[in-house]
C-alpha cells in the first residue's frame, strides 16, 4: 500500500457570523491518531465534516496523499469512515439489517463477517431486535460494528464513546488501537481524553 497521509492547510470557515475554523493546519501519517479537543462549540464537529468534504471550507485545502480531496471526492470517501454524534441507524430495522444496508452500499459483506462484527462489539444478543427498542449505548455499539467492518485507511470519529459504559469505552480504545496497528489513521474529537489503549496520539486543541 502506498504511504498515506492526511494533510490540512490553513482551513478557514465561517458559520453565520461566527469564524469557526481559523486557519486549522496539521498533517497525519500512517498509524497515528489525532485527538481533537476543545470546549463545546469550538468547532470539532465542523472540522470533522470539513475534513470528509461534507462542508467546503472558504479557505484552505484538505490533502489526501498529497492531492486535494476535491479532485476526486468519491475515491477519498471510499477510503474513509465517518461516525457523527448520532449513530446513523433506522429504528424500524434490526441492527443486522441496518449494517447490511448501510455498509453493503460500500463493500461486499458476508453474513458471517457481519455477525462476527456484532459479536465483537457485544451487539450479538440483540442483533435481531428493532433498533427502536435498543438502549442508547446499545445503538452506539451497533454503530461501532461499522468500524470493525470498514478497515479503511482513515476513520473520522465524533465523540465515539458517547453513551458507552466503562467496558464499551475500552472497546473503542481497542478498535482504534487495531486500526493504528493496521497502519490506518484516526481523527477523533473527544472531551475527556481517548481511552488508554490508544498510543502515539498527537493533540489538536481548538480554542473556543
Amino acid at each position, binding site marked *: 500500500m502506498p504511504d498515506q497521509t492526511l494533510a490540512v492547510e490553513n482551513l478557514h470557515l*465561517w*458559520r*453565520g*457570523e461566527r*469564524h469557526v475554523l481559523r486557519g486549522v493546519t496539521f498533517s497525519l501519517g500512517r498509524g497515528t491518531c489525532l485527538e481533537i479537543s476543545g470546549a463545546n462549540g469550538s468547532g470539532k464537529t465542523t472540522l470533522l465534516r470539513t475534513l470528509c468534504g461534507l462542508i*467546503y471550507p472558504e479557505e484552505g485545502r484538505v490533502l489526501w496523499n498529497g492531492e486535494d480531496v476535491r479532485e476526486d471526492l468519491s475515491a477519498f470517501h471510499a477510503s474513509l469512515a465517518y461516525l457523527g454524534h448520532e449513530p446513523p441507524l433506522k429504528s424500524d430495522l434490526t441492527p443486522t439489517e441496518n449494517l447490511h444496508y448501510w455498509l453493503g452500499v460500500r463493500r461486499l459483506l458476508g453474513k458471517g463477517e457481519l455477525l462476527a462484527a456484532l459479536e465483537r462489539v457485544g451487539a450479538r444478543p440483540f442483533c435481531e431486535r428493532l433498533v427502536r427498542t435498543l438502549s442508547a449505548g446499545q445503538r452506539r455499539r451497533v454503530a461501532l460494528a461499522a468500524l470493525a467492518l470498514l478497515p479503511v485507511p482513515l476513520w473520522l470519529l465524533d465523540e465515539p464513546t458517547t453513551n458507552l459504559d466503562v467496558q464499551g469505552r475500552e472497546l473503542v480504545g481497542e478498535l482504534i488501537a487495531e486500526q493504528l496497528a493496521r497502519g490506518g489513521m484516526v481523527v477523533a474529537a473527544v472531551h475527556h481524553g481517548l481511552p488508554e489503549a490508544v498510543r502515539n496520539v498527537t493533540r489538536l486543541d481548538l480554542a473556543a
Partner: protein
Amino acid sequence: MAWTWFHRFGSPPHVYRLAARLTPWFAWPAALCIAAGLWGGLVLAPPDYQQGDGVRILYVHAPSAWMSLMVYTTMAVAAAIGLIWRIKVAHAVAASCAPIGASFTFAALVTGALWGEPMWGTYWEWDPRLTSELVLLFLYLGYMGLRAGIEDTQRADRASAVLAVVGVVNVPIIHYSVTWWNSLHQAPSVMRMDKPAMPPSMLLPLLLMLLGFTLLFVALLLVRLRGEVLARERAASWIREVVSV
C-alpha cells in the same frame, strides 16, 4: 482561462464599485426609451385595422412578457455559474433577478388577460402559452420561497440555484408553446428569424419599449446586486469604506 477570469470579475469589491458606477448609464437611457416608447405606443402608432386601439396593449404586454423570460434565463445562467464555480457574486446576481422577474411576469399575465377579454372574449383560458407563463410565475415564487426558508445564505444560494437551473426547461416551452400547440395566442411577430410582420410605425415603439425595459432590468439588477453582494461579505475591509459614507 475561465476560472481565473471569473474570479477576478467575481471579486466583490470590484463588482460593488463597478455596479455603483454603471447604474446611471443604464437607468437614464432606460427612462428615455420607455418615455419615448410610451409616447409612440399611445399616440403615434396607428390603431390596428381589426383590433382598433386595443392593440396598444401590445406595447406594455410584449415587453413585460419578454422581460419575464429574459430575466429568468439570466437568473438560471447566473445560478448555474454559481453552482459550478462556487462564485458568490453569480449567486448574488441570481438572487437579485427573482423579484424583478416575478413582478414583470405578473405584469405580463395581467396585461395579457386584459388584452384577452376584448380579443378572445375571455380573461383567462387554459392555453399552453398562458399556462406555462403562469407556471413561470410560480417558479419565481417558489425560488423566493425557498430562499426565504433557509437561514444560511450560502445554502440558500446553492439550493435555490438548483431550482432555477431545473426550472429553465419551462422557458423554451413558453416561447415555443404557440408554435408547438395550436394556441389562442399570437404567433411570434417580432422575436422571429425572418423580418418582422409589422409596419415600422408599430414596430419602432415596440422595439423602444423592449430596449427600455431591458436597460431598466440591468439598472435594477445593478442596484439589487450591490445589496446582495454586501449581504454575502463578512469582515471585509472594503465594506467599511462603502457603507460608512
